[in-house]
């Protein structure tokens, strides 16, 4: 394998995939990237066995072939070279040599055949939607995914097709976010898949442009082609909780508040909330919301807010971060918080919004 290209040409695909190269991998080869040259194409692949990214670029090639090299080192070297530098890569024996001007680096390699890649996924259906709409869908839900729950199926995002609707649901067992979008054409199959957390976060990094995105759903994988990058993620094999049972449908009273003002008040109060529990106390009276927070140092914050509310007086505690996350994901200027009692979940949504809702369980303070 032998090729030449500018520093920028090589950096671009490397930068696109480097995020999945783990720093502390259990298998040495997962710290490597796969470089494959075919005709004038250089393909760079990285994987952590859950998420795989493949990026391609045009280069001048002298001979074809494939090899793996330590990803982070190759990336750091290319980044540290001067702008516009011309890079020559060549493999001899079990080493890869990188030459640029008067610099020369020799990197260790591992065999390309040992690099785990996902070539074909057993396609079941392909969904098409606008990139921006899909990005919004992820933005409004990703924060509710569990991080490292032993209930592994919560450490990801549920994607569900129902005719022309694509629904995303995430929950960590304390709160839930649900958002929907309309597909260009009805799904061939109504199904549920769970995309792992890491996959969702990588996918969010890739989405940005105008234009459409095709989501190819296979039996065990989801694959997306975007801006010259092929994203493949394993799906979590598990059953997502029945989210419908968790979204409250017996709301007794509703607070309507200015979303911006409520957010700012909560943000200020959160400064003096207990760092561990993040609890705030909401005190509800007629058209009045009182927010209180205190911490072990006996410091206190109190905020009073005018709201629309004609339900019973109520005192209810919440993790302030959960409220803030949900409020940030609401699009409208006004926001509604639907409550039943201090031990039941709270439903947060924009007053006229139909396609996004957030559920937060209270905290016993």
């Amino acid at each position, binding site marked *: 394998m032998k090729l030449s290209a500018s520093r920028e040409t090589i950096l671009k695909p490397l930068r696109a995939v480097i995020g999945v190269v783990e720093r*502390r991998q*259990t298998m040495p080869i997962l710290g490597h990237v796969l470089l494959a040259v075919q005709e004038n194409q250089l393909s760079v692949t990285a994987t952590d066995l859950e998420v795989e990214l493949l990026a391609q670029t045009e280069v001048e090639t002298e001979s074809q072939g494939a090899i793996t090299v330590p990803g982070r080192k190759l990336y750091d070297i290319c980044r540290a070279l001067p702008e516009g530098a011309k890079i020559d890569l060549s493999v001899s024996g079990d080493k890869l040599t990188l030459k640029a001007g008067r610099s020369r680096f020799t990197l260790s390699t591992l065999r390309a055949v040992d690099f785990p890649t996902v070539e074909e996924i057993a396609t079941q259906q392909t969904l098409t939607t606008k990139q921006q709409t899909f990005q919004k869908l992820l933005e409004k839900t990703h924060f509710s995914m*569990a*991080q*490292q*729950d*032993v209930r592994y199926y*919560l450490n990801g995002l549920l994607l569900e097709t129902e005719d022309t609707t694509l629904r995303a649901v995430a*929950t*960590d*067992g*304390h*709160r*839930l976010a649900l958002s929907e979008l309309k597909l260009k054409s009805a799904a061939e199959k109504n199904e549920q898949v769970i995309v792992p957390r890491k996959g969702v976060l990588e996918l969010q990094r890739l989405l940005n442009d105008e234009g459409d995105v095709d989501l190819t759903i296979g039996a065990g994988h989801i694959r997306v082609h975007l801006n010259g990058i092929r994203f493949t993620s394993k799906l979590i094999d598990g059953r997502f*909780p029945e989210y419908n049972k*968790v979204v409250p449908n017996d709301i007794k009273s509703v607070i309507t508040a200015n979303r911006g003002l409520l957010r700012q008040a909560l943000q200020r109060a959160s400064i003096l909330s*207990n760092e*561990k*529990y993040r*609890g705030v106390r909401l005190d509800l009276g007629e058209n009045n919301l009182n927010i209180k927070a205190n911490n072990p140092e006996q410091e206190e914050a109190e905020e009073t807010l005018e709201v629309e509310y004609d339900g019973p007086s109520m005192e209810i*505690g919440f*993790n302030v971060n959960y409220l803030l996350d949900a409020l940030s994901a609401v699009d409208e200027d006004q926001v509604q918080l639907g409550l039943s009692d201090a*031990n039941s*979940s709270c439903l947060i949504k924009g007053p006229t919004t139909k396609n996004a809702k957030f*559920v937060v*369980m*209270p*905290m*016993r*303070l």
Partner: protein
Amino acid sequence: MNNALHNWDRIVIHADMDSFYAAVEQLDDPGLQGHPILVGSNSGRGVVLTASYEARPFGVGSGMPMAQAQRLCPDALIVPPRFKRYQELSTIIMTVFSDFSPIVEPLSLDEAFLEMTGSEGLFGEPKNMGRQLKEAVKTATQGLTVSVGVSGSKYVAKVASGFAKPDGLTVVPPTAARRWLAPLPVSKLWGAGEKTQTRFAAMGLKTIGDVANSNPSLLVKQLGNAGSHFYSLSCAKDARKVKSQHTAKSIGSEHTLDRDTRHPREIKNYLRRSADAVARRLRNKGLIAAGVRVKLKTSEFQLLTRQEHFDEPTDVADILYKKASVLLSAFQHSGPFRLVGVTAFDLRTVKGPLQLSLLKRDGRERRLESTLDKIAERFGEDVVHRAGDPKTTLGADLVANLDFLDNTEGM
């Protein structure tokens, strides 16, 4: 009322047993009395847990590798630890403490703060409180000595208890505390590690008195927030209360293996055992843990740890174990290992703020474990154990299977 009482607006005692493990061994085996002894594993790979006072002049101290300690003090007898016995005596000692004050803050098996404010009517002047406490401990344990410091704050009481060890009693009236601290080296400032000591030295501050007489704003400039902390201490100001409901920082259980292993199945057995022990202690204390840590020590004594947080705090052994097993696969070292441990950290009280759950948890494991708790309470901990666990009760106390103490935020 005695005149000397007037200046004591607060009375705090710090009581610290003298070389506790070693003293217990000498107590139980009179043949060991007067001899230098080292409590720790004799396997040649253990460390000194406690050295008796007879061994200390040789430069031997806790935490030192046994081999090194033996070189320094070749005449010392090595005694394997008997944690059950230490625990037993600790309970007796803590009971004595609680006879003196309703507010006792244990820092470890053999050390505690006692809030004594307002108890002059019962025990007389502060010096008498100390005398009676020492006497009561000696009687209840049939011979163990404790060093006691009495002052107006936790910090000064703690320094005072260490001032005349062993069998010491040091009383520092609050009004005299600043003067009393002044000649002591800065290393006696609570929280001043080597790094801070070097910084003090660079500023020309050698004694606590130097710090008290320095410019506090300069200290803050040099040491940040810690600067004002050290300044307050140097002036004998420490407003921390004695907290009887001390919250443990972590609860752990570890096993030194009979023989080193690299076999995951064997290691998992130990993880399971530790998880069971940790979860039971959590439940007994009404605590839940938000994180779990797995600790492995290689045959070469390299200590490796991996830890993770739970999305939902727990006191269920099964959940601790499942997470620990996942963590086990994250270790890159392939062994063999000589020690396996599980620690629950980021602890909260069950009664404290609690995030309610949106999804219903399967409560079966929790119920099963609570039932096992009750069986253990009535018939002993060794009656029921998991199938697949090759645990034998014979000789269990001979290996250093240390369900170690809750690590508290001490000083």
